[in-house]
């Protein structure tokens, strides 16, 4: 693995390194909650997806949703992690209005998934980020402070929704790595179907641990935890701002207090939420309503056998089998929808052209219109048809771009467009010869110049012939016949 460009923050003649660890909270893709049968659908009316268990009514008991367990195991396998055959659900005790039980059921000492790793494709090569653990826990409800002037309202729809907390080792060193790490994690979970990774809907959030140290130092500095950051951009902003805050303190000869902080997105700064002294004592203890979770080797094997090809493996296959460059392969596997689209297109068409068209024209359109590939205005089927038209010489690459522009409008069939607009490439040698004769006839002076050694004029003749063919002439054929005529 090659060395990455270091991310360092300069101060006078010192350089500081930034150490980052992430605790990602990923909502498990599941119809129902971790310990109840309520729906997890996003965007429902407040308090319409709340069972007696979710609202912690007296005598109500949690019953584990097996599917969520399988999803966590699946994710663990995707992170190349150790699956713990025995894990324990604990209660994390604290009072808050949107925490109906007065405790969150989580996993403390014995998580369901142990150490694993995620490989990042950085511009200068790969970097491995260690995963410390993955555990399952319940989400809390939502406190709403801005509807009623005098009261806080509580929506318990999220209460009890299953989350996976994925804790990285403090292996991240820059905002760029954080960006790639989150995207990779999201990609793996989307491949697995264990988390939709939708940050707008809060399916993916992170607590960011940041510390700084002088370059070359081996000990970690005191870290601060920035709670609940819900977009990659804000994570990056928070890291930069927090690292600089810590460095400023060190430069002033002050100490950094270990504390929990919040990121104020409007002011682009972090501020203290609570100090270590004020830290909650969560009084963790094993939840006596739930037995320790035991997972059989059989179940692990069964889940393993259902694991789809993951981005790293897919990338390797794309490179080996299709001869793609690592860069192209990385782009195409970054999201399951993209790789699915790509594989659909190449079922019936040329790989090289498909790669270029997807990463080029299609991505440009998606970017411009701010669409996901799943919302692509051109279907894989029609794109492969277009590619085949280029490949078999029916249209030129240039004409293809015109056709593509029209395809965007309602996913039109390129065959029909080509036919209706008469864009079919002229590949009849006789016809080409005829129009070339015309060009030569009309430009006898230029022909003379060319023959006297002005080779550069060849391009001029190609352009004239193309113009004569109204852009439809087969470029290869034009070239060939022109050469014969002019040189012969």
């Amino acid at each position, binding site marked *: 693995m090659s060395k990455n460009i270091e991310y360092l923050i300069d101060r006078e003649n010192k350089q500081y390194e930034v150490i980052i660890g992430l605790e990602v909270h990923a909502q498990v893709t599941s119809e129902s909650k971790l310990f109840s049968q309520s729906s997890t659908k996003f965007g429902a009316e407040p308090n319409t997806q709340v069972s007696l268990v979710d609202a912690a009514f*007296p005598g109500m008991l*949690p*019953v584990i949703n097996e599917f969520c367990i399988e999803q966590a195991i699946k994710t663990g396998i995707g992170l190349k992690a150790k699956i713990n055959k025995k894990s324990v659900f604990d209660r994390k005790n604290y009072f808050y209005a949107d925490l109906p039980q007065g405790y969150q059921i989580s996993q403390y000492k014995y998580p369901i998934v142990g150490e694993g790793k995620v490989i990042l494709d950085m511009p200068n090569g790969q970097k491995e980020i260690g995963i410390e653990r993955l555990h399952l826990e319940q989400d809390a409800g939502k406190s709403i402070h801005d509807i009623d002037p005098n009261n806080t309202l509580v929506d318990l729809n999220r209460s009890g929704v299953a989350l996976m907390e994925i804790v990285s080792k403090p292996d991240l060193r820059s905002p760029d790595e954080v960006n790639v790490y989150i995207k990779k994690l999201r990609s793996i979970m989307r491949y697995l179907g264990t988390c939709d990774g939708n940050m707008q809907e809060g399916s993916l959030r992170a607590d960011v641990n940041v510390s700084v140290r002088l370059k070359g130092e081996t000990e970690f500095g005191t870290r601060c935890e920035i709670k609940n950051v819900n977009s990659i951009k804000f994570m990056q902003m928070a890291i930069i701002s927090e690292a600089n805050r810590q460095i400023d303190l060190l430069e002033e000869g002050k100490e950094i207090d270990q504390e929990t902080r919040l990121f104020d997105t409007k002011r682009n700064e972090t501020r203290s939420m609570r100090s270590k002294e004020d830290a909650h004592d969560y009084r963790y*203890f094993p939840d006596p309503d739930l037995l320790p979770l035991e997972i059989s080797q059989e179940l692990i094997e069964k889940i393993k056998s259902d694991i789809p090809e993951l981005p790293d493996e897919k990338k390797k296959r794309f490179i080996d089998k299709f001869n793609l460059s690592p860069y192209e392969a990385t782009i195409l596997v970054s999201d399951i929808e993209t790789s699915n689209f790509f594989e659909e297109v190449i079922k019936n068409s040329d790989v090289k052209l498909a790669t270029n068209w997807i990463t080029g024209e299609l991505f440009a359109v998606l970017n411009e219109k701010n669409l996901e590939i799943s919302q692509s205005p051109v279907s894989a089927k029609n794109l492969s048809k277009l590619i085949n038209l280029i490949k078999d010489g029916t249209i030129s690459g240039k004409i293809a771009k015109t056709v593509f522009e029209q395809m965007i409008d309602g996913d039109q069939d390129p065959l029909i467009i080509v036919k209706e607009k008469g864009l079919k490439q002229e590949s009849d040698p006789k016809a080409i010869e005829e129009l070339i004769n015309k060009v030569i006839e009309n430009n006898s002076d230029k022909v003379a110049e060319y023959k006297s050694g002005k080779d550069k004029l060849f391009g001029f003749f190609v352009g004239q012939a193309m113009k004569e063919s109204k852009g439809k002439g087969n470029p290869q054929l034009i070239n060939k016949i022109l050469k014969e005529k002019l040189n012969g």
Partner: protein
Amino acid sequence: MSDITSQSLFELTSNIKEKKLSSEEITKAFINRAEKSKKLNVYVTDNFEKAIDQSKKFDSNPNLDFKLPGIPIAVKDLFCTNGVRTTAGSKILNNFVPTYESTVTQNLWNQGAILLGKLNCDEFAMGSSNETSFFGNVQNPVGENLVPGGSSGGSSAAVAANLTPVTIGTDTGGSIRQPASFTGTVGLKPTYGSCSRYGIVAFASSLDQAGPMTKNVRDCSMLLEVISSFDQKDSTSIDYKRNNYSKELSKDIKGKKIGIPKEYRVDNMPDEIEQLWKNGISYAKDCGAEIIDISLPHTNYALPTYYIVAPAEASSNLARYDGVKYGFRSPGQNLIEMYEKTRSEGFGDEVKRRIMIGTYVLSSGYYDAYYLKAQKVRQLIKKDFDDAFSKVDAILTPSTPSSAFKIGEKTNDPVSMYLNDIFTVPINLAGLPGISIPAGKDKNNYPLGLQVIGKPFDEQNILNISYALEDKINFKNDILDWWLSE
């Protein structure tokens, strides 16, 4: 035919099945007696009107295949009952009406029983005398100003006073067996995992079990048969083949090995308890059982272990009573103030004491020394029983170290109150079944109980031993109806 309310469950069901009595007659008889028994304060909430309607409905189309055909039953106010207020003896749930039914009570109604009402108990089942209830003391029908035991004090008093044919209580550290012992009735705590905890207001989840409280052992077997069931809604419920307890009930205990643990001879145990135990041993011998001396070496640690584990779980289980969602709320200027006021005003002293103990033992820095150590000791206590049960079929001990005491006698001395549970607590810690049967009386003529402890899921065996002993003991409760008013 004897007076309706003094009949056993077995007699009442026989009379219904033979059409000698109607459900309405029986229901009204118990309601009538309850109206005259307000002084005992057994009811927190009655369901009399609805009960009469239901009894009429039953009589109009009686299903005599039911195990509790048209039988009115009052239950401890810890069981959530759909549409009927459920308080757990606490101010904080004073106005709480569940929209759901506990599995155990649902099992009763599924077999034709009718809810008479909700019985008083110690607040959140924390107490040994029913004195911690927000709804006041319960009088023990055995004698005026005597506690009925706790926490299922309203239940034990109601059975002893013929206010319900049978009842169900809950037992976390002795809350069924100790009040049964204090009132001359029978109470069984089943194996942990036998009866679903779904819909029972939780005290200490790893210890709580519902169980029958009855006049005699046969009724106890009949009721256990109805309430014990596997329930997917309780993750700690155990799926095993349950016996047909009443059908398999037998006095033949010849050759059964009964263990006598030496560690249960505690200091300062009254002579009459010692004598009661000796009598029990000789009755068991008379029945053909073999008596074997055994040792349960960690018995001494059971009480301190219990008073760490149970409050720890309770401190967390009771966190949900915060004034936000249901129950009592005392308004505050902000969330924290609302919490503080609600919980300060909503909980009584004993509950607060246990929440504080529990919070303390789970706190960072103390967890290992208290909670974790207690869990380890709990395993040792369990192992004591495992070892003993490799040699014996059941264990016989006194149920309590004393008979019922006066109301107010121990309220200022929590530790002396906790000592009441000394013989019952180890059984909960080990998750075993235990039954208390009336076995004699002390010098004041107050009842005393013997406890039979069994192997896990071996309820049938301890019921049979109790059934045989009951026959030999031939206990008669002298209840003089001193509280009745017209």
